[in-house]
């Protein structure tokens, strides 16, 4: 990687409960140069038949990424900052292993291009100390990029959680989800 000005003080905080489904983040995500103008963020209804609840999902940048482990082509790389990068275009064989194995449902397969693409936390911006595109435009601050101190002041009744349980598997991530105080793990049944 080229020389960077990555700010270790800054972190990503997601609060899906605050997502209003406006899709502003999708539009902003498509402006990210590392995505090649494709939007990588996911906004979808949780269960449209019974609720208007929407959810937003960025790549959580797992500490031990399942996507990279199941990749048969060594195409997914985690850098020294813990950012899990989108597939290396020369290596990705478009097998979809990562798409199906990611516990958060993040990677997208571009079928015709035979390529997996995913959020890499706007590396062109975060590597020079700027905020990711989605976090700069989210009107409800479901997506927030800043320091832990800032988020603690903004959300005094919440706590950032970066531990998840999917079945028997615990997954730790670089990105945090804002949870009620006293929570240590978000358990997904």
């Amino acid at each position, binding site marked *: 990687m080229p020389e960077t000005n990555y700010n270790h003080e800054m972190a990503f905080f997601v609060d899906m409960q605050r997502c209003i489904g406006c899709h502003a983040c999708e539009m902003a995500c498509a402006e990210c140069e590392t*995505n090649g103008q494709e939007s990588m963020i996911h906004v979808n209804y949780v269960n449209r038949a019974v609720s208007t*609840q929407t959810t937003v999902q960025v790549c959580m940048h797992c500490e031990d990424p399942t996507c990279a482990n199941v990749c048969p082509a060594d195409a997914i790389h985690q850098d020294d900052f813990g950012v899990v990068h989108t597939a290396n275009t020369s290596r990705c064989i478009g097998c979809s292993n990562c798409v199906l194995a990611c516990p958060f449902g993040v990677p997208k397969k571009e079928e*015709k291009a035979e390529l997996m693409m995913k959020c890499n936390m706007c590396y062109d911006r975060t590597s020079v100390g700027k905020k990711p595109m989605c976090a700069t435009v989210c009107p409800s601050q479901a997506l927030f990029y800043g320091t832990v101190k800032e988020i603690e002041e903004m959300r005094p009744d919440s706590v950032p959680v970066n531990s998840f349980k999917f079945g028997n598997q615990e997954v730790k991530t670089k990105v945090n989800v804002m949870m009620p105080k006293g929570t240590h793990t978000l358990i997904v049944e």
Partner: protein
Amino acid sequence: MFKLFQTLNRIAVIKATIAVVFVAFLVLLGSRDLQNFDPALISYLIGTLFAVFGIAYRYSVWLQRPPTRLYWRRSMSFLFSKDFIQYVLRSIRLFFKNILLQRFIAHRSKTRWAGHFLMAIGCLLAFAITIPLTFGWIHFELRPGDDVTYYAKVFGFDAGTFPLGSVQAFVAFHGLVWCSFLVIIGSVMMMKRRVTDGGLIATQSFSEDLLPLILLIAISVTGLGISYDYTFLQGKTYQFMAVTHAIVVILWLVWLPFGKFFHIFQRLAQLGANLYKHEGERRGMATCEHTGQEFATQLHVNDLKTLTKELGFDYDKKDGRNHLDLSPEGKRSALAKAHFEARKESGKFFG
């Protein structure tokens, strides 16, 4: 040094050694016991043998990784099945479309495809010319009493003639010149992307992304230098041109198994992934319990459950289901539901 030998992968060393011995045997066979081997190309041959060892070694190690091994075994078993002819024809079609023409890159960007195609086709044509020449499989000779006709020999057998100074001779003997032009144009197109695209500038590395293009341009330019020398300089700088070109090519050959160019060999796995997907569709699709829609082949989902366990991930749930039974959208919704429930239990949805 000894530590290096201890960490070598034994199976890969054996396979790579077999590959080198096999290529050396082909050189002996094709050059008729080195009778037709050109000693001036010995350094290229040694570089090529090193590259063969390195590529076979890395390929073997790569195939031992659980996800790669799974795809390899599955695609081979599907290929060598009762549907052999159908899958061979499908693979040949995809080989032309995705390996030789690299059409999938056009869906990423048309300019990018054009640049990559020019570069790749230039390299492949250059391989097709230089490898048989280096191995002594092809050579040209003049015969006593006839100094105006070239006799082409392949594997020591007569393979045709053409007159000295003819268009055919000009095209054939300048084959690498045409390849150099293709590679230079393609490399410059790709280099332009790498110095102007903000996303690439942020994520690329010198050794993985820029050095390969620089090496290809260097090989092509020094190769053109040899032609330039004997065409316009009466061979006065031949030694310099030839040595410079040989150094760059051999550096490239030695680096071939380690760097970005290994993707040339990895790319073949795309054919296997396609067979895997096609056979999976024939066997049946998996339906997401959340969306109620088909999202992948059941074969793929089942294989990934086994694979993730082998890699140390356990997504099994208490009720016997597995988190990977959900589609990507299902997983995102499951996470959002769990978050909602946790907030609800706390008595505060926000804060």
